[in-house]
């Protein structure tokens, strides 16, 4: 692809993103995210709106699987190479170290840990989620490239578990982000986690793990649920 084509493509994408910007009413904005005027090094004054200038406000698009033998092959590759984001959201993350060490060695199954959301395609929600973490989880989840999978660990993600009456933790994860595999228990053993991964692999191979598209399809519903509890939103509606 020549540079000219790329240029065209980029400007096209930018135009599209400006058209699709989601307008939403903010009730609470961090001082850092407020619209402000900044003096540039050359003396000119620039007006910046951090939330919309630094991020793209485009809605997620549904990306249909290609189908056919190519998709089957890619699904096989996806199932054999699951890159888990290294983000321990709850106390279940104490069982992640045993998984990457000699006893339970999950590298055998092609499961690896990645440090950044851009490069990972599976997200382990390890246990309870406080509202403060949920905000980060949503942001991280939206940054992950599709197809992406969510594994929810522990009873807390299913019905709130031990913290069903807590003012700080959510009860059901699947109201906020789509979940592929639930692993029950408090705390689930590493073997249970491996079983969950094997289940996820089966789903991917069968082409059933298309929850990222479901998120795009029901985007408004998920957003409404998320915004209901995250009062301190202060971020774009979709974080690319």
């Amino acid at each position, binding site marked *: 692809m020549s540079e000219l084509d790329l240029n065209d493509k980029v400007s096209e994408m930018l135009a599209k993103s400006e058209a699709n910007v989601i307008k939403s009413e903010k009730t609470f904005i961090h001082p850092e995210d407020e619209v402000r005027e900044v003096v540039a090094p050359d003396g000119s004054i620039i007006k910046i709106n951090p939330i919309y200038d630094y991020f793209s406000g485009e809605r997620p698009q549904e990306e249909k699987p290609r189908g056919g033998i190519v998709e089957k092959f890619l699904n096989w590759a996806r199932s054999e190479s699951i890159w888990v984001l290294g983000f321990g959201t709850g106390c279940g993350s104490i069982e992640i170290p045993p998984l990457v060490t*000699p006893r339970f060695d999950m590298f055998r199954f092609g499961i690896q840990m990645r440090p950044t959301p851009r490069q990972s395609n599976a997200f382990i929600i390890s246990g309870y989620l406080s509202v403060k973490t949920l905000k980060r989880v949503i942001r991280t989840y939206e940054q992950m490239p599709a197809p992406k999978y969510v594994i929810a660990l522990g009873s807390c993600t299913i019905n709130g578990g031990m*913290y069903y009456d807590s003012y700080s*933790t959510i009860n059901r994860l699947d109201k906020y982000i789509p979940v592929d595999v639930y692993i029950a228990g408090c705390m689930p053993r590493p073997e249970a986690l491996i079983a969950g991964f094997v289940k996820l692999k089966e789903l991917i191979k069968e082409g059933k793990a298309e929850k990222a598209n479901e998120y795009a399809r029901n985007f408004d519903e998920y957003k409404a649920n998320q915004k209901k509890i995250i009062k301190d939103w202060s971020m774009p509606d979709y974080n690319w």
Partner: protein
Amino acid sequence: MINKFLGFKPDEKLLPSQTVTTDTVIDLSSHKYQKIWLGPNHPGVTGNMSVELTVQGNTIMKAKTHVGYLHRGFEKLIERRLFVQGFPTSIRMCVAEPDTNEYLIARSTEELSGYADAVPEYANWLRMLSLEMARLQGLLRGVPGQGGTFALGIGVQWGVYLRDLILDRFEELTGARVYHMYIIPGGVRGNLPEGFKKRMEENLVEIDEFIIRIKKLMFHNSVFKTRAVGLGIITPDMVDKYGIVGTNARACGVKRDVRKDNPYLYYDKLDFDPPTATEGDVYARTWVRWQELIQTVDLIRQIMDKMPETGDIRAKMPNVLNWKIAKGETYVRLESGRGEYGMYYVTDGSDKPRRINLRGPSYNHAIALFEDMLVGADVADVHAIMVSVQSCPPEIER
């Protein structure tokens, strides 16, 4: 060094100020500083917390710890649970060493309801065994974990494997891997299984080997020394100022150990001397923890030798379903792997606790102390300092 060698002296006034203190004024609009976030989505952060750093080049000018990502509101939840219901909830306050919470809750309720002396001797020995095993599994993760902060991952791999073996013993003893719920008010929940001591001894022999290996791997390693010596220094006069406890205090020469100062259970019957160091840097703290690893193995052996062969494991307690405790308050503490770990417990005569306040060592270490230690440090050292002060977010925010 090269400057000294060449006899070249730069004009001090022209260089940027090298000494950064907590009072340095930072003007973000001057374009000299950058704000970066470390965590919560960052593999280098212990648990789930974040640090907001204001950096100039590689030097940190200001740091702010943000916690609350793991807030579950235990102290509120327990106010609406019976004493016995609150028990399984509250032990989840700290995942790294959950047994310490069990003991604190059990001990507080026993003390306030007047059953403090009713616990059988054998049960107390079992409690000690469980607490020391918890300390051991914490240290097996923590000591090589300090090497892990400098990318010495091999030690972590070996350590976590051995920790799994200790968790197996826990599973035998209590039926659970991580959250044991073993120490209950009035005693413990189960007896030692057949052949437990023999299998434990086998594991301890393996851990002994590991201790020697980790010494060669970490403390005789030049790169580890280069990075850890002189990093994140805690001076003895900071100890009282910041409320530093445990190995962090012992590594700078202040010998404070609850097991010695206010002996609980039968720690006064055991023969041990908490290790200390004088330097107070990351290396000294790791060294003290490594010595404590040896000591914990020794303590478990002593406990298994000295404990009676058998006995009652539980005292007769009132019916837990309508157990009411008269109005009172107490503070119970123990020495966890991270230092003094205490609980302020208030009852008001009803069947539910009035207020529980956990005093975790990380509360001081990971916020007030950590923020001040980071000023002037290198961005690459944040993770090492964070692990070396043993910050454990779940016990900060509960």
